[in-house]
């Protein structure tokens, strides 16, 4: 079973040379390929060792408009037979605008039976979330979602 703390590609021989220019991770983003102001793409590239993650098979279930950014329920699902030969080894969740890009990394195995993990996360503001799934054959898949987070309208100082 893989260690969730590891990058998806711990073997240095498999780290390819970073592609010059362009997008390292081909995600089906609706927005244009902007400069990576928040380091999201860089964080994903560091995790994936620069390897490309194909969009698909990964779904992020989250409310599109959250009640409160302190505790946002989220479920990540990956299509996979979860057999010994073909299963999800790891799921990594990234955010775009919190102080840090990492949210969580999960390690699964063929014993998991299904590739579905739920948790609750903090979102500082409206932003994109990206989930990267690493398969047992080493391939990477990605899913993304945009979430709207509004601050509480009533500012309550507590004293």
């Amino acid at each position, binding site marked *: *079973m893989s260690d*969730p703390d590891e990058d998806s590609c711990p073997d240095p021989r498999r780290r390819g040379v970073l592609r010059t220019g362009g997008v390292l991770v081909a995600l089906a983003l609706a927005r244009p390929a902007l400069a990576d102001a928040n380091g999201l793409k860089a964080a994903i590239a560091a995790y994936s060792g620069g390897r490309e993650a194909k969009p698909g098979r990964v779904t992020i279930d989250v409310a599109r408009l959250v009640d409160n950014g302190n505790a946002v329920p989220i479920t990540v699902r990956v299509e996979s037979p979860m057999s010994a030969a073909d299963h999800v080894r790891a799921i990594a969740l990234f955010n775009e605008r919190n102080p840090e890009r990492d*949210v*969580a*990394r*999960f390690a699964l195995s063929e014993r998991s039976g299904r590739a579905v993990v739920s948790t609750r996360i903090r979102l500082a503001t409206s932003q994109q979330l990206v989930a990267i799934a690493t398969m047992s054959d080493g391939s990477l898949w990605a899913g993304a979602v945009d979430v709207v987070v509004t601050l509480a309208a009533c500012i309550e100082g507590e004293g």
Partner: protein
Amino acid sequence: MARTLITVPQDAKRGDVIEIRVLIAHPMETGYRVASDGKQVPRDILRRFTCRLDGEVVFAAALFPAISANPYLAFPLRVERSGTLSFAWEGDGGFMQTETATLNVA
């Protein structure tokens, strides 16, 4: 010892994929919060969760400050036979806690 709430279905049959849920009381202090005295509150989070079945890791998670306070995790497990589940949390300040639960599989 932090309070935990662990849910393991007790009606599983061999080959079922069950969902295990764990909740633990912990503030998950991000390290970015400023207290009312103007001082930054230091980071104090849980960093790792591991679930083992009869000693073998079946699920693990690396947690970051973006995980909410009182962290909740729900994860799957295909069950073949009864056994003992253990749940371990590790975190800042030397935090370590392990809980166990029986897995009954028909």
